[in-house]
């Protein structure tokens, strides 16, 4: 028998719940397995150590308290609590579904508009992007020597010079 198969049997042999046949199997295995013999001794020691775990006796008024609580009326359930459990579940599920639908159908006005996608913002962004070119536009367009430069024709096509 393999050692893994002995694990549960070792404990049963210690706690006295093992059958005669199981005890014999354990004894046969331990006779030829040193590791399981050592493990058995350790489990025995732990089992014995648990005897030191403290407990308490019920207090003198324990029975009196139980009898008093037996006489207490059952706590009244609310209107929802009086419904059958299955129906309560369905009502809760229906309420959650209704809430989910209401959230998904809310008017979009209540949501913040995305900043980067508005047309005004896109225009402003283009202006900022071309700012150095625009600042020098008048100087460049009035520069007298500009038409004499090679390739000025193409520039003139795109940006007319007065």
């Amino acid at each position, binding site marked *: 028998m393999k050692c893994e198969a002995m694990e549960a049997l070792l*404990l049963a042999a210690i706690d006295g719940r093992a059958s005669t046949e199981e005890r014999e199997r354990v004894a046969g295995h331990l006779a030829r397995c040193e590791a399981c013999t050592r493990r058995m*001794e*350790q489990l025995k*020691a*732990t089992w014995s150590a648990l005897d030191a775990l*403290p407990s*308490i*006796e019920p207090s003198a008024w*324990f029975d009196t308290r139980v009898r008093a609580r037996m006489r207490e009326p059952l706590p009244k359930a609310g209107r929802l609590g009086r419904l059958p459990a299955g129906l309560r579940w369905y009502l809760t599920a229906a309420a959650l579904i209704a809430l989910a639908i209401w959230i998904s159908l809310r008017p979009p006005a209540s949501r913040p508009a995305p900043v980067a996608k508005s047309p005004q913002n896109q225009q402003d962004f283009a202006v900022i992007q071309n700012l150095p070119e625009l600042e020098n536009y008048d100087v460049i367009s009035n520069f007298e020597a500009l038409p004499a430069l090679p390739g000025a024709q193409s520039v003139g096509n795109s940006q007319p010079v007065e």
Partner: protein
Amino acid sequence: MASTDVELMLGVKAGDETCFEHLLEKYRTPLVGFLYRMVRDRATAEDLAQEAFLRVFRARKNYAPGAKFTTWLFRIATNLALNSLRDGRRRQREVSIDGPEQTGQPLLEVADPGAAIEEKLVERDRAKAIRQAVQALPEKQRAAVLLHKYQDLGYAEIARILGCSESALKSLLFRAHETLRTRLEPLAPHAARPGKGEGR
């Protein structure tokens, strides 16, 4: 002639409260002891034990003799203890794990009253370490170890109480004992001394 638990419970169902008194008398000590070891607080343990008896009484009309009475009672008690531990309602009242014991009893009854003080201190430290090791187990493992060690219940009954299969219970118990063995290894001269006793 002593009645069986089933007979007593059938008597409770028929409205005989003396039958319930018999069940109360028979099971209050093991139930309070089990719950105290689970939650480590006297007031909570007594409250939960009372609640378990109360639930049995309130469910008397629906009682049908099937599973053993102890399975039913300890299943209610275990669920109450696990819920109590989980919801943390008792945490404000809970003493530190190193705090003074609430039983008013010494941590460990030393057999020889004339033993040296040093030996008593060693025994006290050992008892504390064992308590801490058990307390540090996951709740379900702790319940399994306590039901297995201190209640006269078979594997099948403990498995039904914990709502698992018998093989799962055996595996759970073995893991718990391996954890305890590792944690108690520093106490080797006492705790891991081989052949000190076989419990049952």
